[in-house]
């Protein structure tokens, strides 16, 4: 850490003018320099410090806007019709309005992670002290916070050091958000630059949260062999009292586990969870169980299995209290960000709260003290379980059939369904006593229950689906490797070369939410395909869970089939949402550890290195949230392209390259200063794919980078061509753009490709030492 608070306390001071008593003098912070690495040009960058870098990206990857709506309704001038080239009363046009909305989304996402980090760090400092050391991997991880080092130019050593970083991040979010006010920013490209800034600080915020919890709670520390834990609705032992935790901020769940252990109750109560709190509680206690991603909330609650529901923050259904009441399960809200209208019982005696919850006098309680949450949740679960007897909100088969007979065939359910599922047909069948079609819907249902809200007969359609799929649900028993956290420095040393040279064909990170177009199975299929091809596959959050929910013929799940090391052919679960910076961090560490680039406050140079040399791609197949938007934008600024599923088109703005515009794909050769055409590598920075098949071909293509060696490029082309042939049924029509010399041509396809090159009028070209930054040119040509 580079800063220290300077505080002078004087009990009594006698001077010529009198006596001073109990004087306390603070002079802010003084620099304590212990880090030998030279600081780069942009420590704690302001919202404009990296604007030039952003514009370089935006000149190549131009925004393509797809407005949700023709109007702006953000101020009382409006609504303003911005259709086509119209401008609103404030002067803003549609392009700027769309980028403004993207910035708003990313500010929400970044603020959410940063506020999460702030709460977590405050709690951990209170519990473990400001001097508790940051340790995310012992001797195996020297670069403990690559994103923070890169962005801020500091090296956090203790929990207390993280507060300074959070101060900076909170300031940046405020500045960014202020730019969205009426009459502030007017240029869509400057909004876009700010979007990238929001993404960058979001990555820092997430990193702070995860390194704090890894250090304090002793989560797996960069462990490739982190334990395999249970996941799926079928893994829950419903004969025990069951506590369900939902959300992202893990302290209340940790306190539940601690209370159970301290009171010898650990084997008597099931601790189960959804979303990232579930991932993180299994990093703390491998006996805890993950039910599934965010989409499993309703189906799990309505199953009646949870006896107590504890919600913290983020991605929690706003109607969780209503749903909890349907199964007579008390609900405890544990975060100031999500109070759900409940009375604040934080200062009440635990046993009083328990009595009120068990008797049903109160449906829930707001408790803003994680330790008290632990005690109340456990006591309540034990006492309420025998009374509830797993009272459920899922109907019997007879009720499903009778309910289906009341269907008016209005199709409002289908028209409300995000995936346009043919619910009316399934209901029609159900009315005749056949539930198979309803059961089939389960695989592609994202669990939003919009169908129920739309139904004029108030049929509990989602519950019908859950009932019909009861057998499948019982068979949901899988294994997931607990989130390992960081990537070890030694792993980076071993694979840095093969990645940069292209011999490991790519690093693909499956991240984000569960708003899938055709169910989570597509995630498992994609991860296994690329791991089988010896890519390094990383996972986090809900995508990490979906990747687990598959079994091969031997009954093994992907995390059992593939290893967990950061190496070719691994499926590496880094952890929850806030673990995503370990993925960005791995790319940064390749530049730092393998290529020996200065890391400290040297953002632009490291991003330039990653864009041109590290074949990394993010895939957020079910991206839904504002947090996912911020996470993606953090990757874009670092030069890592992101692919989203078709629902991701609703983020309303893509960053698309144009491979047919040759002039967009020139870089400097750092050796000579010459401008060299390198082909569209990577072709896009942000892009939504229509289908899994399209995405897989594009992912393989996006792994190509200008610096690939000929051997590496040949390997990458082999995968690209093979996937295109298998999934699209054709040889790609753009391979001539990616072949620089004949040595790039995959040997087994040489004759066929040479013929194509001849038809295209292809000419051999040089492979530069690529950079977009003129200042990195070592020697200019005369």
């Amino acid at each position, binding site marked *: 850490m580079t800063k220290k608070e300077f505080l002078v306390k004087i009990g009594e001071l006698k001077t010529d003018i009198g006596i001073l008593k109990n004087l306390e003098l603070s002079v802010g912070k003084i620099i304590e320099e212990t880090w030998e690495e030279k600081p780069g040009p942009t420590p704690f960058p302001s919202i404009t410090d990296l604007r030039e870098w952003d514009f370089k990206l935006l000149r190549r990857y131009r925004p*393509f806007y797809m407005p949700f709506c*023709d109007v702006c309704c953000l101020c009382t001038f409006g609504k303003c019709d911005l259709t086509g080239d119209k401008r609103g009363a404030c002067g803003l046009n549609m392009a700027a309005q769309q980028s403004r909305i993207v910035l708003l989304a990313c500010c929400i996402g970044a603020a959410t992670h940063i506020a999460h980090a702030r709460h977590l760090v405050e709690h951990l400092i209170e519990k473990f002290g400001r001097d508790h050391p940051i340790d995310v991997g012992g001797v195996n991880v020297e670069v403990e916070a690559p994103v923070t080092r890169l962005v801020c130019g500091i090296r956090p050593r203790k929990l207390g050091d993280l507060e300074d970083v959070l101060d900076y991040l909170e300031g940046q979010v405020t500045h960014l958000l202020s730019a969205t006010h009426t009459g502030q920013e007017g240029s869509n490209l400057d909004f876009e630059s700010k979007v990238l800034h929001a993404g960058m600080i979001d990555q820092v915020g997430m990193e702070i949260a995860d390194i704090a919890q890894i250090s304090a709670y002793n989560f797996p520390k960069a462990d490739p062999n982190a334990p395999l834990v249970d996941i799926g609705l079928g893994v829950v032992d419903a004969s025990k009292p069951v506590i369900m935790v939902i959300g992202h901020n893990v302290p209340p769940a940790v306190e539940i586990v601690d209370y159970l252990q301290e009171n010898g109750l650990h084997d008597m109560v099931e601790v189960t969870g959804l979303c990232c709190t579930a991932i993180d509680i299994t990093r703390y206690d491998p006996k805890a169980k993950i039910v599934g991603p965010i989409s499993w909330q309703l189906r799990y609650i309505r199953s009646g299995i949870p006896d107590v529901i504890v919600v913290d923050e983020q991605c929690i259904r706003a109607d969780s209290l209503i749903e909890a009441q349907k199964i007579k399960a008390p609900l405890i809200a544990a975060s100031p960000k999500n109070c759900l209208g409940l009375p604040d019982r934080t200062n009440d005696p635990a046993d009083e709260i328990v009595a009120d919850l068990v008797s049903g006098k109160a449906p829930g309680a707001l408790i803003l003290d994680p330790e008290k949450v632990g005690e109340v949740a456990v006591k309540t679960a034990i006492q309420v379980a025998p009374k509830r007897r797993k009272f459920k909100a899922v109907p019997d088969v007879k009720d499903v059939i009778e309910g289906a007979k009341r269907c008016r065939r209005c199709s*409002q359910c289908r028209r409300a369904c995000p995936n346009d599922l043919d619910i009316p047909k399934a209901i029609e069948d159900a009315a005749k006593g056949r539930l198979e079609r309803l059961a089939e819907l389960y695989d592609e249902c994202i669990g939003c229950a919009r169908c129920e809200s739309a139904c004029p007969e108030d049929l509990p359609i989602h519950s019908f689906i859950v009932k019909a799929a009861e057998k499948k649900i019982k068979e949901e028993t899988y294994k997931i490797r607990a989130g390992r956290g960081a990537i070890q420095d030694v792993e980076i040393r071993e694979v840095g070369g093969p990645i940069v040279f292209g011999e490991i064909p790519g690093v693909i990170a499956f991240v984000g939410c569960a708003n899938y177009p055709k169910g989570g199975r597509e995630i498992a299929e994609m991860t296994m395909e690329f791991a089988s091809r010896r890519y390094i596959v990383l996972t986090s959050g809900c995508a990490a869970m979906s990747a687990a929910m598959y079994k091969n013929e031997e009954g093994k799940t992907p995390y059992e089939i593939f290893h967990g090391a950061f190496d070719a052919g691994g499926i590496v679960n880094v952890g929850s949402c806030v673990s995503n910076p370990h993925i960005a961090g791995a790319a940064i560490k390749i530049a730092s550890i393998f290529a020996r680039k200065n890391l400290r406050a040297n953002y632009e140079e490291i991003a330039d290195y990653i864009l041109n040399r590290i074949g990394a791609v993010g895939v957020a197949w079910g991206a839904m949230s504002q947090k996912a938007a911020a996470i993606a934008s953090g990757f874009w600024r670092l030069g890592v392209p992101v692919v989203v599923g078709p629902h991701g088109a609703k983020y309303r703005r*893509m960053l698309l390259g144009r491979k047919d515009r040759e002039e967009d794909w020139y870089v400097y050769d750092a050796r000579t200063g010459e401008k060299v055409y390198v082909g569209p590598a990577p072709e896009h920075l942000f892009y939504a794919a229509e289908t899994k098949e399209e995405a897989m071909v594009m992912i393989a293509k996006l792994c190509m980078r200008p610096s690939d060696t000929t051997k590496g490029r040949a390997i990458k082309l082999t995968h690209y061509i093979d996937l295109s042939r298998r999934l*699209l049924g054709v040889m790609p029509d753009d391979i001539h753009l990616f072949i620089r010399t004949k040595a790039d041509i995959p040997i087994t396809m040489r004759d066929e490709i040479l013929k194509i090159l001849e038809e295209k009028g292809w000419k051999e070209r040089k492979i530069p030492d690529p950079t977009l930054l003129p200042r990195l040119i070592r020697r200019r040509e005369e």
Partner: protein
Amino acid sequence: MAEPWQTAEIPGPKKALVITKPKIVSAMIRRAKRPILIVGHEAAEIDLDGESLIDYLIRLSNLAGMPIVATAHTVRYFIDRGFRPDAWMPILDIANRLRDPNWSGLDGNGQYDLAIFVGIQYYMEWVVLSGLKHFSPKLKTISLDRFYQPHASWSFPNLNMKDWIACLKVIEEDLKERGG
């Protein structure tokens, strides 16, 4: 007055004109100097009274002399039928080119003036058409799908399968009779 198929997808003041008579489509194709047909993966999943929508679209393309861009993995269904589309690329790539007034087209002869969309997920086609409505002012767009797409220039209202198939047949017959 047509309603969006997905109930909440309300567009704003400018909405697609409703194709009340299918011959509007064939007339627009005839009138267009540079029409283009963009086909998404759902086209391969749609059965029109015993034939795939893909087969119908191949005939439509031949009748109108209209190039086909197959999006996603749809190209394989054309190739399976011995028909090579003029191009295949992601829906966002073709949309991004259509909004560029300087794009030279698939054949080097310049930008298109009419783009017909069919077979892309409703919600994805919805936002893509919105992008073109706002940022490609000279381009006319038609949705050939059986659900109302409010961001197109022209769209069918929400139709049942039988009526939609009948409309598609009228378009084909009209192009046969009066030329593309």
